């Protein structure tokens, strides 16, 4: 803890750690110093002069955003001179600012509007015609309206510092100054929209929200992004049962205001025209629309028949359904259908990690560790592409705390630019390469190890041994792909393990085994697309698919049941670090039902009583005692990441117009 200094602001005594900026010291006693360019966590700019205050013994007004509090300092924020300076600054900022508020997307949540209202003059002495420059479109996502820009450099800094992309800069001089994109007339970047979100005015706007509605008209629903496993909270703006935008300006959730392109814009799949809204049943070889009761009755009758003659079932679960749904599905399979053949697409070897850790719960990292630990080793993942939030947090840690980052990857990654040591290793040789860093790692006080799908099975045990041998505290993150990949594992969507990694009495077939079993009588696929790159050996099997779209798997099905997406239901999901978070329902799509509701209706029709999902109990158990699955368990099934980039997201990505329309799509890893 650094030394405290005492100063006085507007007559109020303030005590803050040395080095605190006056603008932040004032906040601690409830005094607002208006500011545009200052932004928590970014470098100081001192560009807007809105934060001018009077400091005793200083001949001129000083910018509070660049002034560190010092012992005995006397600051005044309300003197006539300061009030006059604010009025003048605002009048100046508005010289060429258009009177666009009624049509401006920022209207209603604009910092310039708010501060002008609170501190402005009310009228301007500039009578000259305003300089006008037409609006420009920089990418499928970003628009720039130069006259509205107040040149606060926030977008420039968030892009360079926060994202590590540096796609924006200021060009020209004086009244012609404006922001320019890296490609001259267009942007080539992450399309994350962080610049749009951070812009205090309506200069940067998004394709998605542009001219759609106004902030106060929307219902704002905070829920968890349904794309990657990082678990960002995205606050969806809903108008008329339509998701208009996503952002997280209120900084709720573990991501703060961060969102990548997927959490912010990739929600258009919800209202995609090809969304399934009616159950389909195969009649004479063709899928035709039928009613819910007809479809459910058919599934219940066929499942019942196959069960009573002791037929062979296969059940494939999802990495995007909630924990409650996953729990219910595995119970349905094991008790209702009497089968142990249940699996899902595994993208990281969590099972091996747990078995190697032998119950040491403190060796599992939390999201906050990414920002707080002093060193991190990244093995086999292009974080900026595959785990945008993880990459953002590690970058922030490096910027703010000078943490040490080590990367072992098979190609160039963005982390190279600020990692202390970087090693290139051919695919499959990553672990050996990581071991070559032993000396450097041993010198660190603590370490965070993140590993992708290239470290699996015995290699995970080897990695943990290596970590233990370093003699420093080490925490691990096993990188998995999708929003509830971790939860699918926790809730026992695996052939050999029940919820909470308890051993199953009768282990069944894994995913590949089910597809290859020629004598399979029924295959039930919930929110997955296993037949995209594989064939189903059992040609006569009765296939039931629950999904949002007519995927390759659904096209092979005998019955297709339209499911609701994560933005259309409630429940919990578990992120890559094992943090359990709650979904909120933002919209509803007529005709589609949440998977849990479908399971329940089926159970009722089959006369099964499966009880209520016991996810809370499972997680409480896991927290009390971290489970240790047997070392051989991981061998049941394949671990392979889908290798999604920033602009792909499994099946959902194929139905997101935004992700398909950006120039960077589909992009690639390690470029």
């Amino acid at each position, binding site marked *: 803890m650094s030394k405290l200094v005492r100063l006085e602001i507007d007559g109020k005594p303030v005590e803050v750690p040395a080095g605190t900026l006056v603008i932040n010291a004032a906040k601690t006693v409830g005094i607002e110093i208006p500011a545009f360019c200052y932004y928590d966590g970014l470098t100081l700019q001192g560009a807007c002069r809105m934060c001018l205050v009077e400091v005793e013994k200083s001949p001129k007004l000083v910018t509070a955003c660049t002034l560190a509090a010092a012992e005995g300092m006397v600051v005044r924020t309300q003197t006539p001179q300061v009030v006059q300076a604010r009025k003048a600054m605002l009048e100046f900022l508005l010289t060429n600012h258009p009177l666009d508020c009624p*049509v401006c997307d920022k209207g209603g949540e604009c910092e310039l509007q708010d501060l002008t209202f609170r501190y402005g003059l009310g009228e301007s002495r500039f009578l000259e015609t305003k300089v006008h420059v037409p609006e420009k479109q920089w990418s499928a996502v970003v628009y720039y309206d130069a006259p509205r820009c107040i040149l606060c450099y926030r977008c420039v800094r968030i892009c360079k510092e926060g994202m590590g992309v540096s796609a924006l800069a200021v060009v020209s001089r004086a009244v012609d100054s404006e922001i320019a994109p890296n490609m001259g007339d267009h942007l080539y970047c992450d399309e994350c929209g962080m610049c749009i979100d951070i812009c205090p005015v309506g200069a940067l706007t998004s394709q998605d929200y542009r001219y759609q*509605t106004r902030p106060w008209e929307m219902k704002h629903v905070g829920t968890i992004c349904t794309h990657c496993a990082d678990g960002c909270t995205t606050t969806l703006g809903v108008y*008329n049962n339509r998701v208009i935008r996503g952002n997280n300006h209120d900084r709720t959730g573990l991501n703060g205001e961060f969102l990548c392109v997927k959490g912010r814009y990739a929600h258009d799949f919800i209202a995609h025209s090809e969304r399934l809204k009616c159950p389909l049943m195969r009649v004479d070889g063709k899928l035709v629309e039928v009613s819910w009761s007809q479809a459910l009755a058919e599934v219940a009758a066929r499942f019942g028949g196959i069960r009573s003659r002791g037929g062979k079932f296969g059940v494939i679960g999802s990495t995007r359904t909630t924990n409650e749904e996953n729990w219910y599905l595995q119970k349905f399979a094991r008790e209702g259908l009497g089968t142990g053949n249940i699996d899902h697409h595994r993208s990281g070897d969590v099972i091996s990690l747990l078995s190697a850790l032998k119950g040491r719960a403190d060796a599992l990292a939390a999201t906050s560790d990414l920002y707080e630990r002093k060193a991190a080793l990244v093995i086999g993942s292009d974080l900026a592409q595959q785990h945008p939030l993880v990459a953002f947090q590690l970058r922030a840690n490096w910027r703010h705390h000078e943490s040490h980052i080590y990367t072992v990857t098979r190609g160039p990654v963005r982390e190279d630019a600020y990692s202390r040591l970087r090693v290139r290793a051919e695919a499959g040789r990553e672990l050996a390469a990581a071991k070559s860093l032993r000396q450097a790692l041993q010198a660190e006080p603590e370490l965070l190890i993140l590993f992708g799908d290239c470290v699996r099975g015995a290699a995970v045990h080897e990695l943990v041994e290596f970590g233990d041998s370093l003699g420093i505290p080490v925490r691990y993150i096993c990188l998995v792909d999708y929003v509830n990949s971790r939860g699918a594992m926790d809730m026992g969507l695996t052939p050999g393990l029940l919820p909470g990694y308890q051993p199953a009495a009768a282990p069944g077939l894994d995913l590949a085994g089910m597809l290859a079993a020629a004598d399979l009588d029924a295959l039930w696929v919930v929110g997955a697309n296993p037949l995209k790159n594989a064939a189903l050996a059992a040609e006569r099997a009765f296939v039931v698919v629950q999904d949002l779209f007519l995927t390759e798997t659904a096209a092979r099905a005998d019955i297709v049941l339209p499911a609701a997406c994560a933005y259309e239901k409630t429940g919990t999901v578990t992120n890559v670090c094992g943090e359990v978070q709650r979904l909120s329902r933002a919209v509803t799509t007529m005709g589609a039902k949440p998977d849990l509701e479908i399971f329940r209706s089926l159970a009722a029709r089959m006369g099964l009583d499966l009880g209520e999902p016991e996810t809370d109990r499972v997680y409480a158990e896991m927290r009390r005692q971290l489970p240790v699955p047997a070392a051989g368990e991981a061998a049941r099934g394949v671990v392979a990441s889908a290798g999604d980039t920033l602009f792909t997201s499994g099946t959902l990505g194929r139905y997101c117009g935004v992700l398909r329309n950006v120039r960077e799509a589909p992009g690639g890893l390690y470029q």
Partner: protein
Amino acid sequence: MPASASDVLKSAAAIAKGMGITFKELMSPTITENYPDEPPKFQERYRGVHVLQRDENGLEKCVACFLCAAACPSNCIYIEAADNTDAVRFSGAERYAKVYNIDYNRCIFCGYCVEACPTDAITHGHGFEVAGYNTSTLIYRKEQMLVPLPPKP
């Protein structure tokens, strides 16, 4: 008691005065409205069914800023906005109201929307015949309120 001559005179004078007023009113123009046989007359500032105005170029003045909807105490204005393209332009600004409904089941003709409008797009007209047997007919769409385009010369 027989009436005195002065009583007779007084009565005659009163009748003459009364009839004088009657005849005077009989001759002066009538102020009774002949509604529904003839259209009623309104004061300029009468607040009737809204009219959505056009600018001098015939473009819609409404820019879908939602301020009227925000001001409306009975929450009866529903707007869906969209942006103008170079090919199809509805309003002078970047945005226009794709859908603009007022629910006359709920409108209390307070005029707040007219006050709020930054472009003077919405005004009160003099329409008042908003009764119906079916409440759904009382939700007026943009097309019903918009000033018609002048005929092409």
